[in-house]
């Protein structure tokens, strides 16, 4: 009797646990249907904005139609969310087969070092990707096998989209006030003062989320330094310093703009998407960000927008932050390498280029001959800008890839700079402290 009561208590506990939890397994629905050998390809991407998401949905549906027996299970994440979760997930045996992995040391570098990403060199040959993108594009998705050196070695990802950071402007406001697109940086600063004098916010901006402040700073920085410097800084070679007069000057300009009231009122408390929505609603004449915003600005608005590159200093040549978007990579421990590679190839196909272009997003691939894409619009502006820097060998970098902690330090220090509690010299010194320490640890 006594023993039975114990047995009962344990089995009851188990029963309750099991019955309460009988359902949880079902929401994943990962089990393949019995009797068919359907393959499920788990894909993580970060194309969460509506217009981007539609492109991926279309491509996925067409992929499934062309590959009977393969089903795509898609997982969409915001970039910051993807970055924090994808590393652990790729180490997991049930992790995504294909995932977008941000370039840079903290993400792709760390994953390569841990041996979690599949080198794509054999597929590069098989699918002849050399004709789809140039070696300079490929190097942006390459690491040496130990994950230590960025920019050379194996190819670990393919990017479907291209990006260039520049200036979006409100065409209606420009037309109404008789403003023209400036051709020099001096002219740009004069324009800022004019817009301010007209009591309009010159640059719609919000630094609450932090990361886009890096683009504001670095866009100006790109006009002051050389491409070699940016390459060296980003790839961590040739021992360059961050504490140089050009960077200090860029920081100074950013702080001057803040003091002159060129940014949105209360910008430190406004998030990135909030500031874009304000801009889209007609608040602010311009905003400095990447071409990825174009699709959103082409729908659901009564305003018309254009795009231009931040113009170079009088007599100098320009350069802009740009490159290819976040690449798709394959988990090394996945058992579906071939079908995953087939998916990657699908994502950089001419059809993908066409769909991205229709949505207003710059494709990393050339548009197919004879495609009927309207380029007399905002998309056309970004395409021109991209072609300009590509042909002029003036494609810069996202500097936050430079060290594993560069992103955190840049965000924190830029917020201080913008908040007026540090000087440009404090800023470059603080960032150099992080950068120098990284270079040193690398050489040890």
């Amino acid at each position: 009797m006594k023993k039975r009561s114990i047995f009962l208590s344990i089995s009851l506990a188990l029963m309750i646990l099991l019955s309460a939890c009988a359902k949880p397994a079902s929401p994943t629905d990962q089990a393949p249907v019995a009797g068919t050998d359907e393959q499920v390809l788990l894909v993580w991407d970060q194309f969460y904005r509506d217009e981007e998401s539609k492109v991926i949905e279309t491509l996925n549906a067409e992929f499934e139609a062309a590959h009977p027996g393969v089903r795509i299970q898609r997982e969409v994440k915001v970039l910051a969310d993807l970055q924090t979760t994808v590393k652990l997930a790729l180490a997991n045996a049930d992790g995504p087969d294909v995932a977008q992995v941000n370039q840079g040391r903290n993400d792709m570098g760390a994953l390569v070092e841990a041996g979690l990403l599949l080198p794509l060199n054999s597929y590069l040959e098989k699918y002849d990707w050399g004709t789809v993108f140039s070696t300079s594009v490929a190097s942006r998705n390459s690491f040496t096998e130990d994950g230590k050196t960025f920019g050379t070695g194996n190819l670990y990802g393919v990017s479907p989209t291209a990006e260039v950071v520049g200036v979006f402007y409100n065409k209606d406001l420009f037309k109404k006030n008789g403003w023209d697109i400036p051709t020099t940086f001096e002219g740009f600063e004069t324009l800022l003062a004019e817009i301010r004098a007209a009591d309009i916010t010159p640059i719609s901006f919000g630094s609450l989320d932090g990361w886009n402040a890096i683009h504001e700073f670095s866009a100006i920085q790109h006009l002051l330094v050389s491409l070699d410097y940016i390459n060296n800084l980003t790839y961590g070679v040739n021992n360059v310093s961050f504490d140089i007069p050009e960077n200090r000057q860029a920081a100074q300009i950013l702080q001057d703009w803040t003091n002159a009231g060129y940014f949105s009122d209360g910008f430190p408390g406004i998030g990135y998407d909030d500031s874009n929505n304000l801009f889209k609603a007609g608040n602010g004449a311009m905003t400095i960000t990447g071409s990825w915003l174009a699709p959103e600005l082409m729908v659901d608005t009564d305003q018309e927008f254009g795009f231009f590159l931040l113009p170079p200093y009088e007599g100098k040549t320009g350069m802009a932050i740009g490159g290819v978007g976040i690449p798709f990579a394959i988990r090394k421990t996945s058992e579906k390498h071939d079908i995953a590679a087939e998916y990657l190839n699908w994502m950089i196909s001419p059809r993908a280029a066409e769909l991205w272009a229709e949505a207003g997003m710059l494709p990393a691939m050339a548009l197919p001959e004879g495609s009927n894409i309207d380029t007399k619009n905002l998309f056309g502006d970004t395409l021109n800008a991209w072609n300009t820097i590509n042909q002029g060998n003036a494609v810069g970098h996202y500097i936050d890839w430079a060290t594993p902690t560069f992103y955190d330090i840049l965000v924190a220090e830029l917020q201080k700079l913008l908040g007026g509690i540090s000087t440009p010299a404090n800023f470059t010194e603080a960032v150099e402290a992080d950068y120098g320490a990284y270079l040193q640890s690398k050489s040890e």
Partner: protein
Amino acid sequence: MANVTNKYPGESRWKGWWYLLPALLVYLLFTFLPILETIRSSFYQWDGFSQNKTWIGIANYVELFSDPKFHNALGNNLIFVIFYSIIPIMIGLFLASLLSRRPIPGFAFFRTALFLPQVISMVVVGVIWRWMFNPTFGPINTFLRQIGLDVFAISWLGDFTWALPAVGGIGTWVQYGFCMVLFLAGMQHIQDEYYEAASLDGANAFRQFIHITVPGLRSEIAVALVTTIIAALRVFDLVYTTTRGGPGESTMVTGFLIYRAAFTNNRIGYAAAIATVLTLIILIISLFIRRFQQQGIEESA
């Protein structure tokens, strides 16, 4: 736990173990062993996903104690103690003393309403207040502009001076109703005779409050201190949904530092070291306050 044995004649002295075992196993596996594992990890260097896990002794702790980011985060946690604990307890005492001694119509309604923020998810609280504080369309600045105080309509969560008090103020908002309800319950046990005697001695309301109410609430104040201080030390959800530690590092707290070290900087060992230190601090503070509370009970007995 007195020394009474609960054993009946003829019963196995291990009887209790059979009843304890299922809970104990689940607890050990999913709570206690992970705590030990965290302590162990804090002596290693590990990125969390690769095979390279290196023993580095106390290096993580050495780095931690000289890391200005950790000092800053811990300092912010201590400032949060003022907002999560000290201010709510004072408001709670004040409100409770207003409500307690004389019945007031609508008492139950006030109590229900003031306690409400306690039951709402901190993520929801963060969403509500991120909207409240929005510099362009948030209610606070809209209101300030309407009454002509445009100069105070600043960007609260993005301001180096104001972000920390703003996030702290959310904590005050969450906690003061809880403190009030706690003290109200305690006041029911203070006998009216004390107040009557004090009134006869000519003590005014304030003196009665200091000499009768506060000592009488000793154990409730201790409970309020433990609860709210621990909340202030472990704050994570709120910072995650409002500022993510910004601007600069001005609202960075240890909880978020652990999250960032572990999941964006790939430094599991270092994150484990911070977590271990934070846990120790919390354990010491709660044991200290419990001791103080028990002393109070013994003295008054």
